[in-house]
């Protein structure tokens, strides 16, 4: 019986199907909002679905300089890790697996899709992919630092109150803390961490100002140069899933509390919050800014957001 419950978790609710639809719709909304900001009609909301199914229908070409097996396996590895992350993220107190310390698990699981993109790109053997990989890696290094500090700050804050002063790495404890004391955002010591995380989302997801790795213009789609048909579809799906998962992680960290009892309502509320977060951070910045150079991005990420999150860490450290 337990297996069935878990199977349901994996495939339906917080797992594959839910994320599949939620992610793609979120990506559609994001593209529509960006279009509307530029005063043009913009594609229909279901556009990512059409893109995905069209790519399923197209022929898969494997270039002869590619290492065939890794070339196909890489996108699937990214997909698997994204699905497993979604199991860990609690939606208002309900989470498929409430392992004790899953913030670190999530940090590492979040790097796997990026690594799968890199391995896929490098296995395709094209020089464009080589350049794309080195940029993707630099972008991972640049956004990882502020992300870690912000998560530690949140962990420390939740840990202060909930599990007797020790730091907590478990999301369910963080949610519990927020249900007691209201969403994390309202504690003024957490505002810098909130802003830092807001900056991190575009780079983590790879949206415009920081999508140097998949810059269409200069190095034509970076690591995805040689992909076509089905693996490319999986990569586009990964992109959409990442938006959804990272924003819902953001919501659990900063905006959650004790939602209503029924899971469906909770999921709906969480999803609405995700949309707002995505619009605020990804679409707005995407519609307005141009693409940065690699080391400008690194310089940016290791100064402003890191300083913000360190500030909030210190504040939390002083027990405020």
């Amino acid at each position: 019986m337990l297996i069935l419950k878990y199977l349901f978790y994996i495939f339906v609710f917080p797992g594959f199907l839910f994320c599949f639809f939620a992610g793609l719709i979120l990506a559609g909304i994001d593209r529509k909002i960006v279009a509307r900001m530029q005063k043009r009609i913009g594609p229909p909301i279901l556009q990512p679905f059409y893109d995905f199914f069209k790519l399923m229908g197209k022929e898969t070409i494997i270039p002869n300089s590619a290492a065939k097996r890794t070339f196909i396996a890489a996108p699937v590895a990214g997909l698997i890790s994204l699905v497993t992350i979604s199991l860990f993220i609690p939606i208002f107190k309900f989470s498929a697996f409430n392992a004790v310390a899953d913030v670190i698990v999530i940090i590492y699981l979040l790097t796997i899709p990026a690594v799968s993109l890199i391995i896929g790109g490098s296995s395709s053997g094209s020089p464009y992919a080589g350049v794309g990989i080195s940029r993707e890696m630099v972008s991972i290094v640049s956004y990882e630092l502020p992300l870690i500090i912000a998560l530690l700050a949140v962990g420390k804050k939740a840990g202060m109150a909930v599990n007797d002063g020790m730091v907590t790495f478990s999301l369910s404890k963080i949610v519990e803390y927020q249900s007691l004391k209201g969403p994390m955002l309202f504690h003024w010591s957490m505002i810098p961490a909130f802003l830092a995380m807001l900056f991190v989302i575009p780079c983590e997801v790879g949206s415009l100002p920081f999508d140097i790795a998949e810059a269409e213009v200069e190095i034509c789609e970076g690591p995805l140069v040689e992909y076509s048909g089905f693996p490319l579809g999986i990569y586009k799906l990964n992109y959409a899933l990442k938006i959804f998962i990272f924003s819902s992680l953001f919501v659990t960290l900063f905006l959650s509390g004790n939602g209503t009892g029924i899971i469906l309502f909770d999921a709906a509320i969480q999803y609405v919050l995700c949309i707002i977060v995505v619009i605020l951070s990804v679409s707005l910045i995407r519609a307005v800014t141009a693409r940065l150079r690699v080391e400008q991005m690194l310089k940016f990420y290791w100064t402003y957001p890191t300083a913000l999150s360190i500030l909030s860490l210190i504040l939390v450290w002083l027990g405020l």
Partner: protein
Amino acid sequence: MNFPFVKEAVNSLFKKPSTERYPFVKKEAPLGYRGRILFKSDKCIGCGMCIRVCAPGAITKSTKKTDDGEEITMNFFMGRCTFCQMCADFCPRGAIELTNEFSMITEDKSNLNVSGTFIKKLPPKQQAGSQTISKQV
């Protein structure tokens, strides 16, 4: 670190998008637009002025002997034309006119040709005395 167009982007979010819904709403080309060529074969006298003046050489003339004169067909190959309207200006008889129809999408190249034929009656020839005329002058 100022984001340039944030204000403009946000309030354009609420305004109506300014795209023209083209395929569903037909749109007329502006007045003087140089579109597809309309060839009025009855006015044309086959002088070939437009051929000489057409830069890409999109106009070809072919004549065919028929019993009551030459049958001349002028063929304007749209695929080669730069729509510069030189031929329309230079045509002494104003036989060429560029309409403002702009979408000439085709699958095969052949139906890009605009052509018109007309019969040009030659002046009646005095069979024997043709050389004599020249001497009189």
